[in-house]
């Protein structure tokens, strides 16, 4: 439709507000409470405009265009109204600087004035010069306030981690409250009191921690003033540069803008575009700086001399390591972290095969859900069911979440799920515990830990019996699948999962809804020995209902690692076999570029650690090589959708650290391998592209795979009576745990806790806060996982 703004004829859509249309066309209207991610609120009253035929002023942020609408955004009376409204806002906002006679000269003299305890004017405020209020004041040319100013006298709240709250600066635009409710679904903060007493706060005025805040930082990012400010860097000067990186923790691959001052990282903020759409989580938003500048960073290469690690030059270290490794060729292995970039993983993998004669670099998180799906593809020659992207979530009608506490492990995926719920999708959850996820669920089934297979199989069975979903009809393997389902003992289905048939039927009903379905699943689904059975059942359910699969990759480049690993011949070693071989002495040398729980006693003769942080393995290492972090090297990461994203180099490496690919290629060259003369990451990427290694081409026919009942679990129940499901959270970078790097993060989450029911606790003689020793039936209790366990001792 056509509307007229200030005499200009403009083409507008009905879905955008007049304010947005004006902004899109470069027409300035001051606005403080509106935000692109939030519903119109119309509280600041600065964006008022005149509309022909309507009396008085209309807030443009809440007015939608209509055919032929004539809008005036600038007139003397509008300007006056805005100035007067702004005067009112400022009468409650510390404004000493605004009316100060020295303000013109102030910039030259203010040095470190920001460290004052109380903000009385702009120069004392951490948001000075990046304050939206300040910008509008300048544009409206307000320089005096005819009212007595009111200092509300709140004490500044500093007791919560990560950010501080100074509500004396708050203008009650409500953005923080709204983003917490509307976008993040946490609803930790709200308005308290009314009228001139109104203030943002928590229920019963408790701390944010107690109010269920996830510390995602969304409120800090939308605050137009300095009321909410990140604690770290609050008193520093403004950044002088910024670069866009990919968040190094989980597989979502949020794009972050990292701000730097004189080559030092100040803060990381979610980028507006990209997969995360301006959102991040506590890890990406608040811990990057602590991780990069962690005191446990390895700064210089070290080699073992006389039983002690001593610092040395790169030249000596490389010569030493290359010389030693050469002698172990064929009897050495490389372990890598899937939080490394594709370039690093590619070169390390080549290094492992071509220089060391190993089967390839072994990812430390293995098997992953991606591997599991890949195995099924290989075994049955079929195409993986459709993959979902994050953008598929908001448009879906039903979302089934399995094996992951999404709000904690992948908060940005959770944001999209919440958006879907607002658009009318149903959230279906099957979990063994109650958490934020089950609270938001439209249907939530309480299943026994590790019994997902039975739920998935019985869902398929119910759906097939009622015969309605058409998505899977006529596809390959349907008969085989049906037969394999029939072979399952009828009694073991819903019952084994601890469910009533009726519950399963209701869930199946929800999956039969017309509209797109997304199955979101995580590492929890494959942590039991019957991972393959679980995934097969999930695969079939997806094919049957036409659902899309969204595997929640735990690590930032897990997808990339999986793509690269496709080149390998089958039978490449897994971490479990590597560790076993190290214990038995089958392999003599180990090269660690990622976390691996080495047994206390092993038969290794030569151990190299290539990492950014001092870790447990360093103690027994013969050489330690300092690797650059994600912020110090350019690289590419493939997120859980298969999206290849570039992460820029933000700062120069700390100490003498070098990119992982650089170290590996130099070693390989010295060991005589060919084709390792990479000069920069760009060259490696060129090669990756040339060989099409990061391209996800899934060919083949869609179809069903047969399912079989899990074996190997329940029969050991007598020996190991309890089931221990791990909580998956990428709260680490490489070998550094976030709670170790960031004191604030430690307040929020400390993973070294065992949760046990009161009856089991009493049986094991455990009390709250006691230490317990856990023994599991699984040979490799490497990372967090699900396993049958018994508690063998308490203290």
């Amino acid at each position, binding site marked *: 439709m056509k509307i007229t703004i200030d005499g200009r004829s403009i083409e507008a859509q009905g879905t955008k507000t007049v304010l947005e249309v004006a902004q899109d066309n470069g027409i300035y209207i001051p606005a403080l409470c509106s935000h692109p991610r939030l519903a119109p609120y*119309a509280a600041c*009253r600065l964006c008022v405009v005149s509309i022909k035929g309507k009396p008085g002023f209309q*807030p443009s942020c809440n007015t939608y265009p209509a055919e032929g609408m004539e809008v005036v955004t600038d007139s003397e009376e509008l300007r006056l109204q805005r100035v007067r409204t702004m005067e*009112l806002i400022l009468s409650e906002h510390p404004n000493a600087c605004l009316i100060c006679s020295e303000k013109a000269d102030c910039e030259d003299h203010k040095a470190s004035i920001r460290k004052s305890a109380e903000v009385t004017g702009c120069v004392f405020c951490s948001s000075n010069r990046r304050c939206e209020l300040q910008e509008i004041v300048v544009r409206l040319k307000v320089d005096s306030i005819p009212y007595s100013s*009111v200092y509300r006298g709140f004490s500044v709240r500093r007791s919560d981690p990560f950010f501080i709250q100074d509500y004396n600066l708050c203008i009650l635009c*409500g953005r923080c409250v709204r983003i917490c409710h509307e976008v993040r679904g946490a609803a930790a903060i709200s308005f308290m009191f*009314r009228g*001139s007493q109104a203030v943002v706060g928590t229920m019963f005025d408790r701390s944010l921690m107690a109010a269920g805040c996830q510390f995602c930082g969304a409120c800090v990012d939308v605050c137009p003033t300095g009321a909410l400010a990140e604690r770290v860097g609050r008193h520093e000067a403004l950044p002088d540069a910024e670069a866009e990186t990919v968040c190094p923790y989980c597989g979502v691959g949020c794009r972050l803008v990292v701000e730097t001052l004189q080559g030092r990282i100040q803060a990381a903020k979610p980028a507006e575009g990209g997969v995360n759409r301006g959102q991040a989580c506590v890890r990406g938003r608040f811990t990057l700086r602590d991780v990069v500048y962690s005191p446990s960073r390895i700064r210089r290469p070290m080699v073992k001399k006389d039983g002690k690690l001593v610092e040395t030059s790169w030249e000596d270290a490389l010569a030493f390591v290359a010389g030693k490794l050469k002698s172990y060729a064929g009897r050495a292995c490389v372990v890598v972290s899937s939080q490394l970039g594709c370039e690093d993983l590619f070169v390390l993998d080549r290094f492992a095969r071509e220089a060391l004669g190993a089967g390839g670099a072994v990812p430390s998180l293995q098997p992953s859900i991606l591997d599991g799906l890949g195995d099924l593809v290989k075994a049955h020659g079929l195409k993986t069911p459709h993959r979902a992207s994050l953008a598929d979530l908001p448009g879906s009608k039903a979302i089934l979440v399995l094996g992951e506490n999404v709000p904690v492990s992948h908060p940005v995926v959770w944001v999209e799920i919440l958006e879907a719920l607002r658009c009318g999708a149903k959230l279906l959850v099957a979990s063994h515990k109650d958490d934020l996820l089950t609270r938001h669920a439209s249907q939530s089934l309480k299943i026994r830990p590790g019994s997902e297979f039975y739920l998935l199989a019985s869902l398929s069975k119910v759906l097939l019996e009622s015969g309605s979903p058409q998505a899977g009809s006529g596809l390959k393997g349907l008969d085989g699948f049906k037969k394999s389902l029939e072979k399952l003992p009828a009694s073991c289905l819903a019952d084994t999962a601890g469910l009533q048939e009726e519950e399963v039927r209701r869930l199946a009903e929800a999956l039969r809804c017309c509209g797109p379905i997304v199955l979101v699943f995580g590492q929890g689904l494959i942590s039991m020995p019957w991972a393959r059975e679980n995934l097969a059942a999930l695969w079939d359910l997806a094919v049957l209902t036409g659902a899309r699969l969204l595997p929640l990759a735990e690590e930032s480049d897990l997808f990339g690692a999986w793509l690269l690993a496709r080149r390998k011949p089958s039978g490449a070693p897994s971490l479990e076999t590597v560790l076993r071989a190290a214990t038995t002495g089958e392999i003599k040398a180990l090269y660690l570029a990622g976390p691996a729980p080495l047994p206390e006693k092993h038969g290794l003769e030569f151990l190299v650690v290539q990492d950014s942080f001092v870790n447990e393995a360093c103690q027994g290492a013969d050489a330690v090589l300092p690797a650059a972090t994600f912020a110090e090297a350019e690289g590419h990461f493939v997120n859980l959708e298969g999206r290849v994203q570039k992460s820029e180099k933000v700062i120069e490496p700390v100490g003498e650290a070098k990119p992982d690919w650089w170290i590996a290629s130099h070693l390989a060259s010295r060991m005589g391998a060919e084709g390792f003369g990479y000069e920069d990451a760009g060259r490696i990427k060129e090669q990756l592209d040339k060989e099409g290694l990061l391209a996800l081409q899934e060919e083949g026919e869609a179809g069903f795979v047969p399912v079989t009942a899990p074996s190997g679990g329940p029969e050991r129940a007598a020996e190991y009576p309890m089931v221990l499901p791990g909580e998956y959270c990428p709260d680490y970078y490489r070998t550094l745990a976030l709670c170790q790097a960031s004191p604030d993060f430690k307040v929020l989450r400390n993973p070294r806790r065992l949760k046990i029911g009161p009856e089991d606790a009493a049986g094991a003689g455990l009390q709250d806060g006691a230490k317990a020793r856990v023994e599991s039936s699984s040979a490799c209790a490497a990372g967090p996982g699900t396993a049958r366990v018994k508690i063998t001792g308490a203290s």
Partner: protein
Amino acid sequence: MDLNELETLRTRITASRDKDKPCITVCGGTGCHAYGCLKVAQAFRDEVRRLGLSDKVAVRQTGCHGFCERGPIVVLQPKGIFYQRIQLADVPEVVSKTVIEGLVIERLLYAEPKTGARIVAERDVPFYKRQHRRIFGSNGHLDPTDIDDYLALDGYRALAKVLSEMAPADVIAEINSAGLRGRGGAGFPTGRKWEICRAAHGEVKYVICNADEGDPGAYMDRSLLEGNPHSVIEGMIIGAYAIGSHEGFVYVRNEYPLAVENVGIAVEAARKHGLLGKSILGSKFDFDIRIFKGAGAFVSGEETSLMSSIEGRRASPRQKPPFPAQSGLWGKPTNINNVETWANVPWIIRNGAKAYSQIGTQDSKGTKIFALVGKINNTGLVEVPMGMKLREIIFEIGGGIKGGKEFKAVQTGGPSGGCMPTELLDLPIDYASLAQAGSMMGSGGMIVMDEGTCMVDVARYFLHFTQEESCGKCVPCRVGTRQMAEILARITRGEGVESDVERLETLAKTVKAGSLCGLGQTAPNPVLTTLRYFRKEYDAHIKERRCPALVCKAFLAFDIDKRKCVGCLLCLKACPVKAVSGEIKKPHSIDQTLCIKCGACFEVCPPKVRAVTKTSGASAPERVLP
């Protein structure tokens, strides 16, 4: 119950009732409650039982009669003898003399203040005589907790008519041609509102009765819900039928316990009689009502805010459009009307739009209930035809100003209304005329002020109220009302400066033009109207440093006229700060440096003596500071 059964029931109820049987009706309205009517009613019941008259004499606790000033009110039917200010001690006498012997007790009758003549019948009392008690009249005849009483008075006949004879469109047409406008304040045509909601797209629609009456001094809706809840419920069912809604809410503030209780009883009774629930009166129409108790924030009366509160969220208004009729409660088309509006509906259906629109003015039809309070002789609820002049309401029905003082101003429309001066007394009240005078109809509060009222102080009081009751969402209302209240407080404290008046005007305009909801848009009205009609008082406070009404403490001075003082020591003893000195039988004096202007001396000085003076401005004694 279907239509025939309803009529059968009605016939049975009326047949079982003897019209000539003596009935003692005791007003059970809130005003009379405060005067102790519950005890009086119980005393009547006990007395009747004691005398063994239970079969012959009925005692009924009814809804509010309106004449709250004279409570507790007792009317003896069938003769309609009107007794006022009944005390417990009067009860045996009333029963023995009036009920049994048929004699009228002179001293309990209402006395015409001017002539002193006693008036026997309720309808002859001037307070009632000029009223037109269409909506409110039944209150005095029925026990709100007994649906039979309502049925006996043709209750639910309108509903029966609607369900049996009228299509939804006919109902809307009838309401439209009656010219009924919303009684909650803005005066939007009710039929038009229903039409929009009916036309709105959606399966689920809601109707809401807004009983969140929050204006200080206003209690019409409260008395209707307490006294005649079925009329409101019947109106809602008819409205729901016209709109196509099957679920309704009564949003009533929890501070009205009797209203909550009575409307609850009424809903329950209606449900039991098949007047709510599935297939009402045997028709295909389903409708039920839920009662939602509000926590009593003034802003909850704003419709979007009210819906937000029902949804379980903080009661803050949101910008319109979308209007509730398009997207209301839980995003569904919703129709909100106020209690009085709903109560008008059955009357229109029963008597026809033509009869309804015969009274009123060009664009405001029917009657309006006002809560007449303040410095007026006959405090109470009055129902008058639209278009009646303020003078008639205040001086004829209201009986004039208390204590024979001069009238100064009347404020209509609650805290956001305006104050109108003597010159506007001949203003016929309707929506348009009030708006033109800078005030508004509001829900019907009418506060009368006499010459002893300081208009600056009145403006300060109302702005203080609105700034506390603002939800705090939008800037102009949250901060603007606070600034206005502060400036006004400063003026009354004697710290006003000449630019304050201009600043107030600017602020008032900014707040009016910029605020999000009705609360903010009307909050400056008390300031604007007092500035318009009583500018002299502002000037007196700011320029002359005096308060003409002798209210604002900062400008007052108390002194003792030595020629009049008899030296009785009363003021000396009453002074809390020992500012008065003197000896017995010798003139006293006040030490101005010690005086805190509490007025205790002025109060105790015997009327015969009147030696203590209260003055303001130039004539006040100099306050010499040491």
